[in-house]
């Protein structure tokens, strides 16, 4: 017989009370765990989605351009000092500290051309990099790979009346339409894509690049820092992050995180009060028993230990049950709230450990006063019959 065995036996003696106390704590914790797990999982999901977004860093030459557009209606640009990028920048981009986070670098040359009497924007690209960066592109035809292959946006193909396999002549060059781009709803629908070198020749921009799109893997890499790193190696370029949409989503997730933490605080307070009231009732109910312990020589610490152990065990069980319950709830809710089709529930041992420790700590804190009261109980007062 050890004092801890007394605590265990007392818990077993009152299964209903201890069960309901455990359930109350577990449900409270489950709500917090579900919210935290959801927000963490959704953050990871969005980061993953952002990785699939394609370019999230745009590199353009520094210029004194002023965009003349409003509400999606573009009236062109006022350019005071139009420049191009040198191809050497492609190598310099790969030298940044976070270079391992760069998934793809897609240089482009832009130029206006006239085809069948219609003005068209010609885009010279590295097809391999472009297709890797835009996984959402759906092609009708074969993937362009040859030096005379062209890819046509859906609108452009409709206006020009061409289909895969047709040939197009741009300037003094002839291209085979390898594929048509299915409608994307973006500016890509009206463009003509040809290999970079060919576009440079047609637009008389040999050895020049108009802009570079960079796809950076964002899970664990700060886009802002990468932008700064690239800007440092490309002092003549303007480097900007395409992050507004993602930031908006992350802001929402941030709010959810803050809400879950706030709710966690409220639930912790309620849990503290529930444990406190239960343990106070427990101590008052066991006054005679505690009086016996004190009378036969149990120190204050021994009695406190019994009460705290009981509270700690309840907290431990509630923590474990609450964590599993919260995970279950998060698993059910995640598909309804997440951005992607197949979101993954983020299982973090840190969350499990923190959840169980937090409930254990709350239980112990709540039991300190009742335990102290029990430990300092005067045996003569407790044993009224004496």
């Amino acid at each position, binding site marked *: 017989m050890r004092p801890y065995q*007394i605590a265990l*036996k007392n818990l077993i003696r009152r299964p209903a009370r201890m069960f309901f106390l455990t359930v109350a704590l577990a449900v409270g914790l489950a709500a917090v765990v579900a919210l935290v797990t959801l927000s963490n999982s959704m953050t990871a999901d969005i980061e993953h989605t952002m990785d699939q977004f394609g370019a999230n860093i745009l590199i353009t030459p520094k210029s004194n351009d002023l965009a003349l557009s409003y509400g999606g209606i573009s009236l062109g640009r006022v350019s005071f000092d139009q420049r191009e990028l040198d191809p050497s920048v492609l190598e310099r981009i790969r030298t940044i500290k976070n270079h391992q986070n760069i998934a793809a670098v897609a240089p482009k040359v832009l130029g206006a051309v006239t085809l069948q009497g219609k003005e068209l924007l010609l885009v010279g690209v590295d097809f391999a990099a472009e297709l890797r960066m835009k996984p959402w592109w759906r092609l009708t035809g074969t993937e362009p790979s040859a030096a005379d292959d062209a890819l046509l946006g859906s609108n452009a193909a409709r206006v020009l009346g061409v289909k895969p396999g047709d040939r197009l002549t741009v300037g003094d060059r002839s291209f085979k339409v390898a594929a048509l781009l299915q409608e994307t709803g973006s500016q890509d629908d009206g463009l003509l894509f040809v290999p970079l070198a060919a576009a440079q020749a047609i637009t008389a921009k040999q050895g020049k690049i108009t802009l570079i799109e960079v796809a950076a893997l964002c899970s664990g890499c700060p886009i802002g820092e990468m932008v700064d790193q690239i800007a440092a190696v490309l002092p003549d370029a303007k480097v900007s992050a395409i992050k507004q949409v993602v930031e908006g989503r992350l802001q929402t997730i941030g709010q959810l995180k803050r809400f879950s933490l706030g709710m966690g605080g409220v639930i912790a307070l309620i849990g503290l009060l529930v444990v406190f009231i239960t343990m106070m009732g427990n101590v008052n109910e066991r006054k005679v028993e505690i009086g*016996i312990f004190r009378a*036969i*020589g*149990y120190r204050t610490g021994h009695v406190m230990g019994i009460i705290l152990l009981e509270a700690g065990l309840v907290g431990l069980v509630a923590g474990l049950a609450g964590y599993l319950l919260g995970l279950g709830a998060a698993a059910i809710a995640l598909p309804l709230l997440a951005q992607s089709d197949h979101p993954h529930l983020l299982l973090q041992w840190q969350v499990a450990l923190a959840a169980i420790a937090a409930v254990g700590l709350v239980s112990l804190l709540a039991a300190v006063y009742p335990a102290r009261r029990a430990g300092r109980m005067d045996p003569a007062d407790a044993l009224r*019959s*004496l």
Partner: protein
Amino acid sequence: MITTSNVTKNYPSGAGNVAALKGVDLTVETGEFVCIMGQSGSGKSTLLTILGGMCHPSAGSVEVDGAAIYSLNDDGLADFRAGHFGFVFQSFHLVPYLTALENVMLPLAPLKMSALEKQQLASDALTRVGLADCAGRLPSRLSGGEQERVAIARAVVNRPAILFADEPTGNLDSATSDQVMGLFAELHQAGQTIVMVTHNPDNGRYAQRTIRLKDGLLDTPDS
């Protein structure tokens, strides 16, 4: 040996203090069996709790084997009770969710000794009170007399210097009372110092000496 000197105890009351003990000088020799008798409210239970180190007197001192027990701090006093005293309570006060054996082992729980050793000592104590067969039973499965004997076994399991008993037969019928008092007599014959509070005059015949309390004072000065 217990020696008290001018022990007084006042309890706060609405109008002021109520004096439960008004200066008690008492000596209990080692190996003695002393009965404290008196009417309800005479202060006999208060005196027992003070002698047993459970209630600080308002004034005066209590020495046990030369040690002024109330000069000890709370833990020191608890240790002293654990090492020197055994208690038998009127309502048995067994812990309901522990078996007879576990109840007897309670005073040993905080002590540093092996579980086997504790179990052996508790079994021996139960055997001494004739309840070796009831070790695994919960108090609710024991008769009043058996519960009282378990309480006695619990009180003597740590072989205390002094055994305090408060109305040990208060809840028992006369036949069972005789059995229990016989047990106290046996313990006394084995050398146990016993201080017992009772209002049953029949119990007095088992004691060597009877002290009477009246209105917080010894009716017959201790000699």
